[in-house]
């Protein structure tokens, strides 16, 4: 090898030193939370000091090979686990986080996980919502593999990204609940558990063999087939669908309306003219029409669908029909997947997607039950919350009054979020008239602004009122 062990370790040490420099800069910044500062100054610095020592020790021994500890430190460095944390802290904008909705997430996750955590909020220019944990798995790995046990911050760090322009757009907040769904699925290994419930001996599952090409005459048995679909399609689809269910179960119709708003945002004029709503299966996502069927099923499972005002029910039904009748063509691609150092080629086809849909459909009762168990009764939307939303829309937002309480009882945050959509869809014209914004110069912009302001105010004050009255 042209690169010597010494060169390699020197390069690694150089990277570690640069990272340490970055931590020094980050630790000099002011943070509203002492935990973030403590995390940088104690824990991240401790890791990088340890990594430097490992590399330095290896540099000074005369062996030809790397020590096991160097290999582990190098692996973590290559995975960019530490860099991602520093990047998240550096890009966090504590001043412009979506405060009101973040508190809803905070309360929800705290209620489910019963643990403390920090949220690092990162505004983005592009339309990107995400919600994921970036520290805890690494911490556990370091404790186990490098015996590092002196961490001072024992809490999760959740990285939340959101589009800057939609910081105050609570009408879009339903999307976040899908992203929180992803977080909960990951943290609780839900997708793996559901995947294990597949009947791997069934004719449907075994028939997937037809869609796989094995290179170099390698074997393709049931075990290989399970591994292939665990690494692609099925697990990914389960994750998406579970996140949809969790979003519907927590925020109900508001998720559907937010999601469709996002769809409008990403539909081109060409697609509009061709009645071409994007409705394709892919390696990562099942088609929208398949997702919509499940979303509707989840709403019905909660026994709230039939209770919705007719106009909202019709809207949801029309979305479902639009997807079912979309002119979108499924591009059947093929791609390689590498499992245990063997390459397999998966060929997409109508047959493959039909079988995948069939296999997943058998898992839906398990997915619904797991979601219900994970969230617990208090976090699942119910008829009462939607009744509250309906009243808020009619008696409050329509009258230009925030939906923060009713009869001196603080409003439920999920009811507030839904009330915004109810008001927008049911009372749009009368609300516009009330605030004298009927000229249409800004389209629905002023209306959305007004509804969002009232919702934002309500989320903020109802949370305080609840604590005051406790």
């Amino acid at each position, binding site marked *: 090898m042209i690169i010597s062990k010494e060169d390699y370790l020197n390069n690694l040490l150089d990277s570690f030193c640069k990272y340490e420099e970055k931590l020094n800069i980050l630790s000099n910044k002011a943070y509203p939370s002492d935990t973030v500062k403590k995390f940088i100054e104690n824990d991240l610095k401790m890791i990088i000091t340890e990594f430097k020592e490992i590399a330095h020790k290896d540099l000074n021994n005369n062996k030809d090979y790397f020590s096991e500890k160097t290999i582990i430190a190098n692996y973590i460095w290559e995975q960019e686990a530490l860099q991602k944390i520093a990047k998240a802290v550096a890009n966090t904008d504590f001043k412009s986080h979506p405060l009101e909705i973040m508190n809803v997430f905070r309360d929800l996750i705290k209620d489910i996980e019963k643990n403390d955590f920090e949220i690092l909020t990162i505004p983005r220019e592009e339309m990107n919502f995400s919600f994921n944990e970036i520290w805890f798995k690494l911490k556990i790995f370091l404790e186990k593999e490098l015996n590092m046990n002196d961490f001072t911050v024992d809490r999760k760090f959740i990285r939340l990204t959101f589009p800057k322009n939609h910081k105050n757009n609570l009408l879009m907040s339903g999307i976040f609940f899908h992203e929180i769904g992803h977080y909960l699925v990951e943290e609780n290994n839900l997708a793996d558990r559901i995947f294990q419930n597949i009947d791997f001996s069934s004719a449907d599952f075994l028939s997937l063999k037809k869609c796989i090409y094995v290179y170099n005459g390698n074997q393709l048995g049931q075990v290989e087939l399970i591994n292939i679909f665990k690494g692609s399609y099925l697990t990914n689809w389960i994750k998406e669908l579970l996140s949809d269910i969790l979003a519907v179960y927590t925020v109900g119709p508001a998720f559907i309306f937010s999601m469709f708003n996002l769809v409008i945002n990403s539909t081109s004029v060409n697609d509009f003219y061709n009645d071409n709503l994007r409705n394709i299966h892919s390696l990562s996502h099942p088609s929208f029409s398949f997702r919509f069927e499940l979303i509707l099923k989840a709403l019905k499972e909660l026994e709230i669908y039939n209770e919705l005002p007719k106009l909202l029910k019709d809207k949801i039904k029309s979305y479902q029909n639009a997807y079912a009748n979309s002119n979108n063509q499924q591009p059947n691609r093929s791609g390689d997947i590498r499992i245990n150092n063997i390459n397999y080629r998966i060929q997409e086809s109508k047959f493959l997607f039909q079988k995948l849909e069939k296999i997943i459909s058998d898992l839906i009762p398990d997915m619904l039950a797991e979601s219900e168990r994970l969230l617990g009764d208090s976090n699942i939307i119910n008829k009462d919350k939607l009744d509250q939303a309906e009243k808020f829309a009619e008696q409050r937002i329509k009258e230009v009054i925030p939906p923060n309480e009713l009869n001196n009882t603080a409003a439920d945050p999920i009811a507030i979020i839904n009330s915004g959509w109810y008001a927008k869809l049911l009372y749009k014209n009368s609300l516009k008239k009330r605030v004298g914004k009927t000229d249409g110069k800004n389209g629905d912009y002023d209306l959305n602004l007004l509804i969002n302001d009232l919702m934002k105010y309500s989320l903020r004050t109802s949370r*305080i*009122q609840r604590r005051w*009255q406790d």
Partner: protein
Amino acid sequence: MSIISKEKINDLLTSKAENSLTITPILDNEKQIGESTIDLRLGTKFEVDMRTRKPFFDPLSDKRPIETFFQDTYRNFGEKFILYPQQLVLASTFEYIKLPNDLFGIVFTRSSWNRLGLNISSVLQSGYAGVINLELVNNSSNPIALYPGLRIVQLILFSVDGEEREAYYRDSISKYVANSDPDLSSISEDEDLQVLKDKFPINS
């Protein structure tokens, strides 16, 4: 024109009539509703004025919008906000108010805050809807710690005689519609500015 009494205030607050009085949330009715006044609490959001390179606000110039002279910040209940001597900070009441079309209101600082050097006064037009903007200036020579949630101003309501008028927020001259946060000055939108620009151009 007469001052609205406690009894009438409570009647209006519980009335189901469409065009009634709304003050929400009232965390402690006993403490907040006096014989003829309503105590309102300090809200959680603040717009703090900053010294910048630009030496002055200029409503006639659109080169530097007013919002660039302010920085927003948030304090939860229980957290303090320090108001320095002679500093201007825009805050708002915690409560959202909606006045019926036949009432108007006057807002002034509770006397205990007055005596520390805080003076706020404001008029609410009939039909007003929103939180009440509080222009906080510390006139003493010592910084004052303010806490969101403390009762800071009093509202007195008066009945308006004569024909019923359009609600404030529907009025075309209204610049502040259903605010839920402290709102910066909209002086740049004042129609008279255009008159000044058109009829009295500089160097004419």
